[in-house]
């Protein structure tokens, strides 16, 4: 039934392919060094005074790494949550679950994003 062009594209009736799979892997690879950096940042600042922690996070390269982490982790998290929803949630509840997963991922990412910007820009 597929047209020659459809066969070449190989995407089937959904017209979508492996974006989620590939994005999951890309963000997974990005998350590894970024999370190791976050863990080291936290461990080396346990119990540190406020000014010291804030000054550390305000450094451009630290802020850059944390912003990258927040974006990458949120994309990775949403794909994972969508996979769990696809397996366990059906019918009308699935729509709600997808909305909640998306709003949650966007919410924590944006909250973290704004916080990092505020810390590094010093407002």
């Amino acid at each position, binding site marked *: 039934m597929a047209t020659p062009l459809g066969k070449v594209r190989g995407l089937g009736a959904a017209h979508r392919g492996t974006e989620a799979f590939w994005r999951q*892997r890309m963000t*997974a*690879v990005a*998350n*590894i060094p970024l*999370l190791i950096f*976050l*863990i080291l940042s936290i*461990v*080396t600042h*346990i*119990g540190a005074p*406020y000014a010291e*922690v*804030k000054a550390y*996070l305000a450094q451009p390269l630290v802020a850059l790494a*944390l912003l990258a982490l927040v974006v990458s*982790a*949120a994309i990775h*998290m949403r794909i*994972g*949550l969508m996979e*769990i929803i696809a397996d366990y949630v059906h019918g009308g509840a699935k729509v709600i679950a997808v909305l909640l997963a998306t709003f*949650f991922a966007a919410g*924590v990412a944006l*909250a*973290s994003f*704004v*916080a*990092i910007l*505020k*810390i590094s820009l010093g407002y």
Partner: protein
Amino acid sequence: MGNAKLRAERPLSPHLQIYRPMLTMMMSIAHRISGAALAIGFILLAWWLLAISLGPEPYAQVSSFFGSLVGRTLLFLFSWALIHHMLGGIRHLIWDTGHGLDKVSIEIFAWATIIGSTTLTILLWLVGYWLKGAF
């Protein structure tokens, strides 16, 4: 009615309760559970960052929570979930290249993930306490 009979007798795919629990199966489940748990962990990260951005007072509050017994227990579990999920993810990335899919390798990967994540988590906390001057 013939359709109803067919539906009734159609064999069902075996599911979790049919299989004997195996390590690799448990690791797959653990990967999903740790991933879901990390979604909650993301809230703690956002809270920590927001508190720092808001000033010394909120930072003191978040610090005292993370320093409490409940906070430390949560952070320990989240750090374990994170390291476990990361090692499990590396295992998946290796599989994506087509390597390590044989029966012996998957068992080795499973044990390496469990032992690795537990060891690294404990090591991380020992280093943390050591940096804090606990010993």
